[in-house]
């Protein structure tokens, strides 16, 4: 697609990566990485706030996917698009994430008040 690409090797690189318009898959990869790091964050952090951050990351990863599927720019020929729903869903996800963060933070504060720690490993009062 780039006529000047044959001129030099670097052109290939450029034309290969930088000169191509991005596709949905690129966004999906970003979303996947965000999502995964969020999950790992939840799985690894012992700090309650860390887990909250992990949740935020996960939600963002999902949002990226929604946006990607709903974006008018990435709408290739014959590729299905969810149109406006993508943005709307992402919007609601963000709003609910804010609400979730507020409540989760309040819970964490209560937990801190009662156990004087935010170590989630000590929040096993309900263990079997």
């Amino acid at each position, binding site marked *: 697609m780039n006529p000047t690409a044959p001129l030099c090797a670097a*052109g290939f690189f450029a034309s290969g990566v930088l000169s191509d318009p991005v596709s949905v898959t690129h966004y999906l990869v970003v979303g996947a990485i965000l999502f*995964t790091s969020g999950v790992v964050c939840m799985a690894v952090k012992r700090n309650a706030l860390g887990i909250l951050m992990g949740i935020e990351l996960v939600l963002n990863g999902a949002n990226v996917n929604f946006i990607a599927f709903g974006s008018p720019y990435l709408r290739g020929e014959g590729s299905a698009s969810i149109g406006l729903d993508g943005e709307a869903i992402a919007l609601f996800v963000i709003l609910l994430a804010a609400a979730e963060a507020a409540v989760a933070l309040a819970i964490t504060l209560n937990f801190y008040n009662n156990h004087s720690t935010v170590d989630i490993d000590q929040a096993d009062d309900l263990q079997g």
Partner: protein
Amino acid sequence: MMGTLPGDSLGMTGMVLLAAINWHSLLFYLFATAACACAVAVVLTDNVVRMAFYLVLSLGATAGIFFLAGADFVGAMQLMIYVGGTLVLLVFGVMLTAQSPFVSIRTPSSDKVLGGIVGAALLMVLLLAAFSVDSWRRPAMGLVVAPSATPLGMALLGVRVDDDPTATPAAASIRSGYLLPFEIVSVHLLVVLVGAAYLARAKRRRIPRGIETAGADAATTGGRS
């Protein structure tokens, strides 16, 4: 970004390089790298405040990605709510619980390894899914239209003014807006505000004295609940 530039008449290699660059892709790569790197940094850091900092950067980069995808409103919303709201809440929490033992709680490395393995598996699965569909991989410069928040706003009010290439006019006429979810979310937000305020309010612990013990107990229990 505009489609690929026409061939360069002067043909300087560097210029060619620069000229060959698709700015849209470039910016995307920048933001994507920032987002992913900061996300990974969030995972790898132990210090809570630094985690929050990296998270801000990651979310900001994500907002940039949204802008690039033409979802300006969502991007701005991301900035406003996450970066300006959620994270300030988080930092609040950090401050309130920021004694030295809690700022960084070490995680047993075995857990880290396990989490890494699990995460790798999940990532692999996700990437598999991401690459499994051809039409997704097909790079496409969609129809170029100036981004606008109007369709989204109207849709939130229940009126769909956006175009759906896949929908027939008949179907397009009956596409439903998001008025109901919008209302639900707003009420939900209100409830959450009240609830969070109630949960996080300051507990005053009175030492119950003699006769008012019962009432005081009721009050304290009610307060703790």
